[in-house]
């Protein structure tokens, strides 16, 4: 499974997904000449998915692309454009890494959980819920992991005020 094969497979199976890999802008940035094959080989495939295909794509990537290693999961708050969930999964044998992205839309905080596919996603998604308040549907144990149980709000959201009073210490 090479990177190009993976890209073709994703394009065939998920037609609505948007796959970016070796973007020409980054190739031009390397002193005007085309980037060598070694430089593009390590770059992750960035797959932007609709929310409905989040879990099917993870199953497909694990079964077909051999991405058995769940690297990390996080989120981005794009303010009024809504939240974006990011996950990186990798095929360590062939050196293929895939970055999954999905936009939840404004005001939406529900996202399918990847725990049924990758057990390592458990704590990552708990942290994501802790910091961004994303409700991962299908998560077996969705509660706060880093902050105290009595914490109010989700601090990495842009709408969270830093000086929010926290009795009795702030």
């Amino acid at each position, binding site marked *: 499974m090479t990177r190009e094969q993976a890209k073709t497979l994703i394009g065939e199976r998920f037609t609505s997904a948007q796959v970016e890999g070796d973007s020409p802008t980054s190739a031009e940035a390397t002193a005007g000449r085309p980037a060598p094959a070694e430089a593009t080989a390590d770059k992750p495939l960035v797959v932007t998915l609709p929310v409905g295909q989040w879990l099917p794509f993870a199953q497909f990537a694990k079964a077909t692309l051999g991405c058995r290693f769940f690297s990390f999961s996080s989120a981005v708050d794009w303010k009024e454009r809504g939240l974006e969930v990011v996950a990186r999964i990798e095929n360590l044998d062939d050196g293929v890494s895939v970055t999954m992205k999905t936009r939840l839309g404004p005001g939406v905080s529900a996202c399918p959980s990847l725990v049924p596919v990758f057990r390592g996603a458990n704590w990552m998604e708990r942290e994501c819920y802790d910091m961004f308040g994303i409700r991962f549907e299908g998560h077996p144990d969705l509660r706060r992991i880093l902050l*105290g149980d009595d914490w109010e709000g989700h601090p990495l959201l842009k709408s969270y005020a*830093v000086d929010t009073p*926290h009795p*009795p*210490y702030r």
Partner: protein
Amino acid sequence: MEIKPPIPQVPAPIWRNIKDLQEWEQLRQRRPEDDKHSSLFESVTEGIHSFPGGYVVTTVADSFLNWARKSSVWPVTFGLACCAIEMMATFASRFDVERLGMVPWASPRHSDLMVVSGTVTIKMAPMLERIYDQMPDPKWAVSMGSCANSGGPFRHGYHVVKGVDRVIPVDVYVPGCPPPPESLLNGLLLLQDQIAHFRRTGKRAAPNPKVD
């Protein structure tokens, strides 16, 4: 047989009811009246004072007790962040605080000093307060490093207590990020100096000026 809850249900002052931050900090800095001496000690001292020249006796006794206290300040080993590495270096053989009578002790029940070494997060603050409460009187606290003094570089973070003096009363503030062992050693010597000037009124020396 009734099983008592492990935590005494003392109604704590609630932050929302206190508008003024200064008032809140003064509340946290308040010490109990019998901070330094027991009531038995007080009554014995009053008895000595009724004799002529009794004050000479109590002053000499005070000096002796203060000398004994400052010569055996046992810090509880309580490391919070990277400052704890410097604290360990201070306790180790090169700087050797044991020549000052300080033995890093692994129990708050036998300790006199807490070196708050590092960032105090909101999640850790109740535990810190509890360990401080477990130490027997008389007890002292040294705030080590910018984070413990004022929050330091994380002051504007969402999870950091802006200075450990919002949690426990502090006697010496040691600036630095992190303070080298020499700084902490200087702070400990300042603390010994403060302990040497206690009087039986139970009042403490004023803390040294706060430096961020």
